[in-house]
């Protein structure tokens, strides 16, 4: 356990090195929220859509973006690069579990991103639409747990996709599809915007549980909803970790490192 903590520690240090990167992402986050705010302001004419009013809708997008900005999305690229370039060789030489090592190594970055972008989300939400009506502080622990689960789940899914580099020469299409699924099934719009039958399916799928799950918990909290979402998130989290293990342990047998 100690070694994974040290890894997390050094990843904070590494995160701080990339100051330009952080600044870039802050600007990007701002632009995203601004565009969605403008879009929804045009769409709304004072009433609700599928149970969300404008204030809730803008906070919703602030939250779904928050998940994606904290998920260490770089992991796909890192895995892809490590496998293809053979940089993984040194990684496999160490007395650690490669998958948890990568998670620990990103944890610092994630914590750092989480603090920066949570602040961003709150500031932008306040500026654009003001405080959320009826927000209950008692919801905060559930929200935090849900966010952590969705970030972890997303991380391990992205990692599994990156590790597909063991099997495929070109694995970025998988990443592209996954990103788009996250985007349409929860990030852009809450699943309540979709037909009932689709909602029925989507509320059990990881794409919506990553984005819609925690975001709805912020804008429209109810204890019953939290109790429904969090167990599902736990199940998918376990599934994502197992998938990463499976893809890794089978894939590593196929590994070839060329040229030195």
């Amino acid at each position, binding site marked *: 356990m100690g070694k994974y903590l040290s890894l997390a520690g050094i990843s904070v240090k590494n995160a701080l090195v990339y100051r330009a990167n952080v600044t870039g992402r802050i600007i990007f986050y701002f632009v995203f929220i601004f565009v969605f705010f403008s879009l929804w302001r045009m769409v709304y004419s004072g009433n609700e859509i599928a149970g969300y009013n404008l204030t809730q809708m803008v906070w919703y997008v602030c939250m779904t973006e928050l998940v994606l900005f904290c998920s260490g999305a770089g992991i796909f690229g890192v895995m892809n690069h490590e496998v293809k370039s053979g940089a993984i060789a040194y990684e496999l030489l160490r007395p650690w579990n490669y998958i948890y090592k990568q998670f620990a190594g990103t944890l610092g970055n994630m914590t750092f991103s989480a603090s920066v972008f949570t602040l961003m989300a709150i500031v932008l939400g306040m500026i654009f639409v003001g405080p959320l009506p009826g927000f209950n502080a008692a919801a905060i622990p559930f929200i935090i747990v849900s966010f952590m689960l969705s970030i972890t789940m997303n991380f391990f899914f992205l990692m599994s996709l990156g590790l597909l580099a063991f099997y495929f020469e070109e694995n970025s299409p998988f990443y592209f599809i996954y990103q788009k699924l996250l985007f349409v099934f929860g990030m852009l719009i809450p699943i309540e915007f979709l037909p009932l039958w689709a909602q029925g399916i989507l509320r059990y799928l990881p794409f919506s549980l990553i984005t819609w799950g925690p975001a709805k918990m912020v804008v429209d909290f109810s204890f019953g909803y939290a109790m429904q979402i969090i167990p599902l998130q736990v199940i998918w989290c376990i599934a994502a970790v197992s998938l990463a293990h499976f893809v890794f342990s089978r894939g590593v047998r196929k590994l070839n490192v060329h*040229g030195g």
Partner: protein
Amino acid sequence: MAAIKLDGLSKTYKVKVRGEGLKNTFKSLVKPEYKEVEAVKNVSFSVDEGEMLAFIGPNGAGKSTTIKMLTGILHPTAGQAEVLGFNPVKDRKKLSYQIGAVFGQKSQLSFHLPPLDSFRLLSSVYEIEKTEYEKRLARLTELLELEEFLDSPVRKLSLGQRVRCEFAASLLHGPRILFLDEPTIGLDVVVKHKIRDLIKRLNKEEGVTVFLTSHDAGDIENLCRRAIVIDHGTVAVDMSVKKMKYDYLNKKVVSLKFNAETTLEETEGVTLIKHTPYAAKFSVDTRIAAIGRVIAGLDSDNIADITIEEPPMEEIIAAIYTKK
């Protein structure tokens, strides 16, 4: 006791075959064809504890693949490897505490952080006790002269400085076997010497087994007693460096300076390389003409200076590589 044992070790991998042109591109999309490449074919040998082995061969011969199978990074397609009694793939984690590796073409240090940060991280990864770590680090710092750049970010280090840090990083946990894959590639003479000295000391003082691949003849000559030449994935030569020199080195080069104008003639086994009135350089094939005889046949009063040289190790290696 054997520290490393290979028994019929093989590694085959598939490469997609793509023809040229649009038609073939589509064809490979629909029905990809694969070609099997045998990187390592049925390789067997063993290395004793405390031995320093040169594992050499031309580019693409299978050296790195073999090293990576021995360190548990690559899974063999067939055959067995045993390193310190472990199966490298199955007991990868357990084995990793006992071995260290330097891959000359890859880095294990955090690019943006000072080496000291990477060392500290490794000490916790390898669960090295604090006092032990400090002792070890102090020793390596002294041996490799790392003091002045221990806290500059790795990206600001020269190649020589970086490689010295790579060595320190690989040695912190006191490995019993050191795998070196072209560790001195691109280094200047001074750094090369420093690194060779370090390897020698580790071998002598701590009994570290060294498994070295290198294209640098100096590394092989200075460090190793035994050499294995691998070519096209199979062991081509396995003998002592001394014997290798003797066997492949049936050539001596003699340079002479004369007191008076002299003309030498070629005889059987003696080939003139250069000849001026006051000097000559010729090579002797010692299988045909004994070097003693050739020298005895010279007019000793007329010789102002004589040098007898062996062809450099590099030529020997080249001879082995091109023989097949």
